[in-house]
């Protein structure tokens, strides 16, 4: 049995040859381009990425992240619903984390069995009481969105630990405007370059109390991390230091960085190091990328760590199945975005339903990321399923099962042809403690092999630029001609300019 691609919703075409309204302009423009033109620009794109070092580490090798020419376009109205749904979800998860590392009311009320929380691999008792009063726990989040066969957007997963991919959003847009600028002509696309400034502001606001001009740093595990490029980009675009664990030293519960002029205090750490490697005194003692004493400094509230320690319990995939209930419980609202139909395997009935039909379901580890450990039932061989069955019986808490969704498709340039390929979407949200802001755009990942449903870059995925439109429909060109493009008061003032100067060998007045 396989996933039937004809079941999937196509983002661009509603029927063969019939483009959906938001894609009409781009389908026209593409129709005018010759394959050889497209090929040439692709090559240019590849060179640009290779030169700029826009890469991810794949099996120890730095590879350019493949970017597809055809953008994923999201209309303004649909984006409105999507971003509101993401905001709602992030707020609920924030409240949940505050509760489980605080009073634990949702556990006392029986909303979630206590053992489900305490048995989560990412539940950290150490996290209790170390978040400053006004700092959010989830400064940055990524919510993976898919579109099912009937066109509904659903949440596939949450990532409130260290979501990555924003650098590709920024770099993809830059590359697209350079290589395929003509595609943008008839669209008003929201820019994505606001992200670093928003993140920096959120980090500033989360500084410990009493610190007026906080020093913010980005903490990276180092150059060998798969997302190192992203760490560099964020540090650069925010204008802050990119530090490694060895650059930081904790003295008297205060974090300092070692500079050429001695030590300088650090107040906010946007860390891209996982919890378990963060502080060898509290977590893995063999960590060489962490900072000894960091957890104590955070507890002494001299430094803010973003995202907070212990957030992983909120994106545990078993907790994911409770998120709609968390939204109702904490926000008293109905969820705006649905989950994908999921099965809790610690429930005996569900477990047996799934075990009886393993070939129908997607089974994933509750604490996995990067597509690791996922088994897609319809695409798995018998040996894998046998092994999976044993794993599930031994540790039902360790996995969840989901209905196999034929992800929506977007035409993608593969071997000089446009072929439908499955995509997902990862929007990014920033919580500055006052509001949750969702970047208009996101990372559309595309599974390049035919029929593949796992889009992670580590599994042969590529990406597409994602356009969130400011207008409901493409601008009406006829009307745009009639309307003045700028008001007279904004016209450039006339300035008397000095004549250009030339050297002795240039004839005066020549206009070279």
């Amino acid at each position, binding site marked *: 049995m396989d996933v039937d691609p004809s079941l999937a919703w196509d983002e661009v075409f509603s029927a063969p040859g019939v483009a959906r309204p938001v894609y009409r302009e781009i389908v026209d423009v593409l129709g005018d381009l010759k394959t050889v033109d497209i090929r040439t620009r692709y090559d240019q794109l590849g060179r640009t990425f290779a030169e700029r070092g826009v890469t991810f580490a794949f099996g120890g090798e730095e590879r350019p992240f493949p970017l597809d020419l055809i953008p994923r376009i999201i209309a303004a109205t649909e984006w409105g619903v999507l971003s509101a749904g993401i905001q709602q979800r992030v707020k609920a998860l924030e409240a949940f984390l505050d509760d489980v590392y605080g009073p634990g009311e949702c556990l006392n009320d029986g909303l979630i069995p206590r053992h489900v929380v305490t048995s989560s691999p990412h539940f950290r008792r150490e996290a209790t009481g170390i978040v400053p009063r006004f700092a959010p726990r989830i400064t940055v989040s990524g919510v993976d969105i898919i579109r099912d066969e009937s066109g509904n957007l659903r949440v596939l997963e949450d990532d409130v630990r260290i979501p990555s991919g924003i650098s590709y959003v920024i770099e993809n847009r830059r590359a697209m405007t350079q290589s395929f600028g003509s595609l943008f002509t008839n669209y008003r696309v929201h820019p994505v370059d606001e992200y670093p400034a928003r993140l920096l502001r959120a980090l500033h606001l989360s500084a410990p109390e009493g610190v007026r001009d906080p020093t913010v740093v980005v903490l990276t595990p180092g*150059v060998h991390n798969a997302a190192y490029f992203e760490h560099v980009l964020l540090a650069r675009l925010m204008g802050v230091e990119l*530090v490694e664990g060895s650059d930081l030293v904790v003295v008297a519960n205060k974090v300092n*960085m070692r*500079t*050429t002029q001695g030590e300088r205090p650090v107040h906010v750490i946007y860390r891209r190091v996982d919890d378990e490697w963060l502080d060898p005194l509290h977590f893995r003692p063999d960590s060489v990328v962490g900072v000894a004493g960091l957890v104590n400094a955070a507890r002494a509230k001299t430094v803010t760590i973003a995202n907070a320690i212990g957030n992983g319990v909120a994106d545990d995939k078993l907790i994911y199945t409770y998120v709609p209930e968390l939204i109702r419980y904490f926000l008293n609202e109905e969820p705006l975005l649905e989950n994908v139909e999921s099965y809790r395997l610690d429930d005996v009935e569900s477990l047996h339903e799934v075990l009886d039909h393993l070939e129908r379901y997607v089974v994933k580890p509750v604490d996995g990321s990067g597509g690791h450990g996922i088994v897609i039932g319809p695409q798995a061989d018998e040996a894998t399923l046998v092994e999976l069955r044993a794993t599930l019986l031994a540790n039902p808490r360790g996995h969840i099962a989901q209905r196999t969704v034929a992800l929506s498709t977007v035409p993608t340039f593969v071997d000089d042809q446009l072929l439908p390929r499955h995509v997902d979407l990862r929007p990014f949200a920033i919580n500055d403690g006052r509001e949750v802001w969702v970047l208009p755009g996101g990372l559309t990942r595309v599974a390049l092999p035919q029929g593949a449903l796992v889009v992670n870059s580590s599994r042969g995925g590529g990406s597409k630029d994602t356009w969130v439109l400011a207008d409901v429909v493409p601008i009406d060109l006829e009307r745009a001609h009639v309307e003045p493009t700028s008001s007279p008061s904004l016209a450039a003032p006339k300035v008397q300019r000095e004549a250009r100067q030339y050297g002795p060998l240039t004839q005066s007045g020549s206009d070279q």
Partner: protein
Amino acid sequence: MNRGMLARLAELIYWTGRYVERADDTSRIVDAYVHRIAEDPFGDSGVTCRSLFATLGMDVDANASVTIETVLDRLVFDAESPSAITGALLAAYENARRVREVISSEMWICLNATRNDLAAQRDEASRVGPASYLKFIRERSALFAGLTDATISHDETWWYLVLGRSLERIDMTARLLQGRLFAADHSPDWLTLLRAAGAMESYLRSAVRRSDPEAIAAFLLLDREFPRSAYHSLTVADHCLDQLTRASTHLDIVNEARRTIRTTQSRLEYMDPKTLLNSLAEILTLLETTSATANDQITSSYFRQVVATSWMSEVGT
């Protein structure tokens, strides 16, 4: 530039400057030797090649045959050794990759694109000879130097990079001249050395207008204005340290490196050019130790300051 930069980054930047300069200078030196061998088909190229290795401080097996191929393998194309041109460039790339957020995109792209192009350049060199590869390296180094000057603020980052470049240049200029001492008959002649240092035109236009060894050695070591002369490089290094000292609070330690540099600089400043050739061996050794000693002093005072450890009790929750 009064706040201090991350010590780790300062060290990486400093070495980026050194490695790019090393790739550049080594390619100049190798070019001069390759030229020498080509021009002198009756000479013993083995001895010439051996003197080149000795010049660059590299060991070669006394019994093995040393040919131009050995030179190309070990001094040009070896990707593992930072003493080889390719290795030095890759080391510069690896350093730059770790400091991408403090150098300009253009500087980073320059090194990244150079690295991406190395394999193709090597293929071309295997068809048309090493000169094209050496020229490629020199041009990319020049591009990097130009971008360094034009695309980042001349703040602490820049001073560390220039400091690294200057110390490397002092060392390499000394090594360039070493060949004349080891095996004068088998090393490039004085004019080739001038050319290798990119100093031919400057020398010819200088007031000296003589082409005897004494004047050439004096130009490469003592000239006040030529940017690759040992004296000029010492002056630049001293100026860098002066700028960095102003930002510093640890005057005592920093002065150590300046003292090393300035002592040697004064020695050259008051040297009689006529006696230079007599004390050439001593001067070249002095320059090499100056570069090495200053490097160690800079490392311990700026990059690897020792921090005293203290213990704190846990904070209650």
